[in-house]
């Protein structure tokens, strides 16, 4: 007899070869988790053999990710539950894992991202040699990977929170892995405190739900009742903090740039989506109907989308720009989720299905694209040794492959057809459009229209942001000698970028199949029969083919045979242009930043000096200042209040044993009094 049991929820699977194969596949996925643990131990043991451990661990990570991906394709559509046997109990409670449509999708995304991160690692880690400890990095990275598998597969709250904690702590350690820099230390600390608050709120919500429903299993939790509003709120806020939703996003622009590129790719690509996964698994499938919570999620999502992209526009650090853009996209996903919940409450199943599919599809798309962009930024960082847009430029001729991958990823972030970013953005638009048409309430229709307006503004800002990143970062001439001496990234790095590009393009072109697949996963509720396929009526393959063919024809017809003379850039006859006459990252964003200066608290100070300063200035300096209102007006003051309170409390701890005895005695007396009074 086997010493573990795979209970099949679905009776429809016949026993025999087919059933065995399915069980095997599920075993492989769970086995991946176990093997990742072993690999983490091995990484710890091997920590002194840097080169060997780098190669071996990258290989192991890729192999495990590939095996889980392959196993995933073998599992079909059935649901599995797996409960750990006696020796592997968590205290008194067995760990339970569950594999269904939703977790399958996220396991797939995670495997893909881990695979490309593994491919990328060998080349990339050379750049960090001497700055990070290889053994520590790999141990925490593998723990991080296994915990993310664990969170997505967990079937009950206890397993979830254990895995969640391993994930939070290991990722905090990874953020701080390059800890010789002061900013990295600060970032790791900010991130760590954000995760503590998030975990605290989640624990509170889970305990509350346990006392309401009497079970730790997510399947038994019902958020449809009136008492469940407060735990739902706690859980929502907890997940929002971890996802980086406005106004809890401030840790994110610190943590992502500080971490090594592979880590920020996984964190932005997958870890931020885990919060969305949690929201779907717990709140959406738990039947949340409370309009207060749904409206809050809607509002937070809309603000995050706008706020994120607005701040992304004015960033000068490539990774910080990408981090803010993650806030925008997580906001869009939360918005889509809230639209789905609203539509479900308003009894509009068509809109609910479209919006839910949009949310999950955008998770998938953004996960792939953002990891691609972070990996490209990592490649730039490792070759040009800077991420500052003021020092980049002219990489088009030095790193053409990386540039092509970065451009395609950016197009997808700008939701340009035929790439995948467009497909999910289209679904969000479509859900709003249908909601503006079908909703009974005129106010809801107006809100849907206003949201369409907001989304199109967000889209246009995203275009501005990414055109800035592409144009200033890669085109023109190099703004520093570091960028001038950059070379193309190594083959492994290019391969991992290309893999993600192919995935993005594939998901975009064949979006209608992907949408059909996702919409049939029964995301809105736990019973599998409830969902209908969402229609994706655009003929993207035709459009893509047409665009490509037209481009080729136009090129061959017009430009192929034209006589070309290479000359210098037009300089108005003033003589050679210097690299400083190019638009900088700040000057490119200036007109837009000026329009939004109340939000950004945008200020420019320029000084022009010289004897004849009007015609022959000798010194020109321009200073751009942007202050985040949230950080300067709310977080820092409240932090000051907390530390003041902590100092006050510290007076209690005077180090005198007499005083402590008085505390003990008085507490006892007070408790006894309270006890008798009750």
């Amino acid at each position, binding site marked *: 007899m086997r010493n573990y049991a795979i209970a099949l929820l679905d009776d429809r699977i016949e026993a025999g070869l087919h059933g065995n194969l399915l069980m095997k596949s599920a075993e492989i996925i769970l086995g991946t988790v176990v093997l990742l643990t072993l690999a983490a131990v091995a990484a710890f043991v091997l920590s002194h053999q840097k080169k060997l451990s780098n190669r071996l661990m990258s290989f192991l990570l890729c192999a495990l990710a590939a095996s889980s991906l392959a196993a995933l394709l073998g599992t079909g559509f059935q649901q599995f539950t797996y409960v750990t046997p006696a020796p592997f109990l968590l205290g008194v409670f067995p760990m339970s894992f569950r594999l269904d449509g939703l977790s399958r999708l996220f396991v797939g995304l995670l495997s893909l991202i881990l695979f490309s991160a593994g491919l990328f690692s060998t080349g990339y880690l050379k750049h960090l040699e001497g700055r990070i400890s290889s053994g520590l990095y790999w141990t925490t990275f593998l723990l991080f990977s296994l915990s993310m598998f664990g969170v997505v597969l967990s079937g009950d709250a206890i397993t979830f929170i254990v895995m969640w904690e391993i994930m939070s702590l290991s990722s905090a350690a990874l953020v701080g892995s390059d800890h010789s820099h002061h900013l990295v230390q600060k970032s790791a600390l900010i991130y760590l405190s954000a995760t503590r608050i998030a975990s605290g709120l989640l624990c509170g919500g889970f305990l509350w739900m346990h006392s309401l429903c009497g079970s730790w299993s997510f399947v038994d939790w019902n958020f449809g009742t009136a008492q469940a509003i407060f735990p739902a709120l706690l859980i929502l806020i907890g997940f929002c903090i971890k996802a980086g939703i406005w106004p809890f996003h401030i840790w994110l622009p610190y943590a992502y740039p500080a971490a090594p590129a592979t880590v920020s790719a996984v964190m932005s690509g997958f870890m931020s989506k885990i919060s969305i996964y949690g929201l779907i698994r717990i709140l959406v499938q738990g039947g949340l109907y409370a309009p207060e919570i749904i409206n809050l999620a809607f509002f937070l999502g809309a603000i995050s989308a706008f706020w994120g992209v607005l701040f992304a526009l004015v960033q000068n650090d490539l990774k910080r720009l990408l981090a803010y853009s993650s806030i925008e996209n997580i906001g869009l996903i939360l918005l889509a989720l809230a639209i789905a919940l609203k539509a479900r409450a308003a009894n509009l199943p068509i809109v609910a299905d479209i919006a839910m599919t949009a949310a999950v599809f955008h998770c998938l798309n953004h996960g792939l694209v953002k990891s691609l962009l972070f990996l490209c930024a990592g490649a730039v960082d490792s070759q040009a040794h800077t991420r500052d847009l003021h020092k980049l430029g002219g990489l088009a001729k030095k790193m053409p492959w990386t540039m092509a991958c970065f451009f395609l990823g950016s197009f997808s972030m700008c939701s340009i057809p035929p790439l995948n970013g467009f497909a999910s953005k*289209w679904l969000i638009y479509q859900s709003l459009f249908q909601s503006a048409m079908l909703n009974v309430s005129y106010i809801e229709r*107006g809100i849907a229209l206003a949201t369409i307006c907001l989304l199109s503004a967000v889209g246009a800002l995203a275009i*501005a942001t990414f*055109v800035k990143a592409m*144009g200033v970062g890669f085109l023109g001439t190099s703004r520093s000698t570091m960028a001038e001496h950059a070379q193309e990234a190594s083959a492994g790095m290019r391969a991992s970028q290309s893999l993600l590009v192919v995935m993005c393009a594939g998901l975009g072109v064949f979006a209608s199949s992907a949408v059909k697949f996702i919409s049939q996963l029964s995301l809105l509720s736990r019973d599998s029969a409830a969902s209908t396929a969402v229609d994706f*009526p655009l003929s993207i393959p035709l459009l893509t083919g047409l665009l490509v063919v037209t481009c080729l024809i136009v090129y061959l017809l017009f430009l192929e045979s034209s006589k070309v003379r290479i000359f210098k850039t037009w300089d108005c006859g003033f003589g050679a242009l210097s690299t400083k006459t190019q638009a900088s990252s700040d000057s490119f964003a200036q*007109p837009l930043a000026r329009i939004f200066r109340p939000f950004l608290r945008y200020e420019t100070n320029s000084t022009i000096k010289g004897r004849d300063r009007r015609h022959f200035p000798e010194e020109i300096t321009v200073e751009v200042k942007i202050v985040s209102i949230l950080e300067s007006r709310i977080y820092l003051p409240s932090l000051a209040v907390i530390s003041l309170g902590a100092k006050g409390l510290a007076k209690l701890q005077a180090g005198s044993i007499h005083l402590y005895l008085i505390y003990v005695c008085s507490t006892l007396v007070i408790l006894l009094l309270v006890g008798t009074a009750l």
Partner: protein
Amino acid sequence: MNGAELHLLRSCSHWVLFALSVVFVPPLCLGIIRKTKARLQNRIGPPLFQPLFDILKLCRKGETLSSTMSGTFRISTVVVFATMLVLAWMTPWLCFKPWSPNADLFLIVYLFALARVFTLLGALDSGSAFGAFGASREVTLGLLVEPALLLGLVALGIFCGSSDLRLVFAYSPLQSTGVSGAPGIWLLVGVSILLSSLVELSRMPVDDPTTHLELTMVHEAMVLEASGRNLALIEFAHALRMSILFGLSAQCFVHAAAAVWRMSPLTQGILNIAGIGLIAISVGVLESLSVKLQWRKVPEFVAYVVSMSLLAALVAAGSGVTKL
């Protein structure tokens, strides 16, 4: 002739008419604007097809590229031109169009964005300050005008119960169900598309396309490095974008008219083309009479356009028309 032959003949004639319009309407649009401006300044002005002759002449010249450019510049020109051709095929800017796939309004708007992104990349490729400042202003205008254009189309979509512009601009089903009986929405959207197209095409009162350097800040600055066939492609793509947007606007006006007077498809086709011409004339008149707005005042101008679209969308959503 039997039915099948008749159908074939009709679709063939649609293709021919459409191809002719794609080639001749865009330069004609530009020609009409220039001629109107010349007549208002008491000049005779160039012939109506001068823009086409210019483009043909450019095609015979060689290109000069900057040594700092990567391949992005030439690729971007090709992509912009190809996207505009595809858009011309998909967008219902003419009422005699051959078969085309689903012209979803969000897809159309984002295909315009595709062309815009590539124009911007082409402008940034040489590292010239002109191109970069043109690009920086273009993204600003894009942000301002995109909500207006999208909301205008969404208003029509909600009004007609579909996001497919083919259905929105189809004539017969609308007339039979009487949905087109609200000329107000069509008029509002027509005006808002027209005004947003002025911003989108960087024409007066936002930008002056006829001068060089000081006054011309957006599109002409972006394409400063282009020459020869490259420039010909860019100019034609820009003219095509103009006629698509003017055509959409003219279609809206024709629909508004069709809501009041019943008319045959032939009259609609003629009115459609005449509408584009009339719009071009009025743009010429506007450009002769008005001055360029100060750059900082542009958001205020665009605010009117956005609020017009929003009004149209709210009216459409409030009218409670359900699906066809």
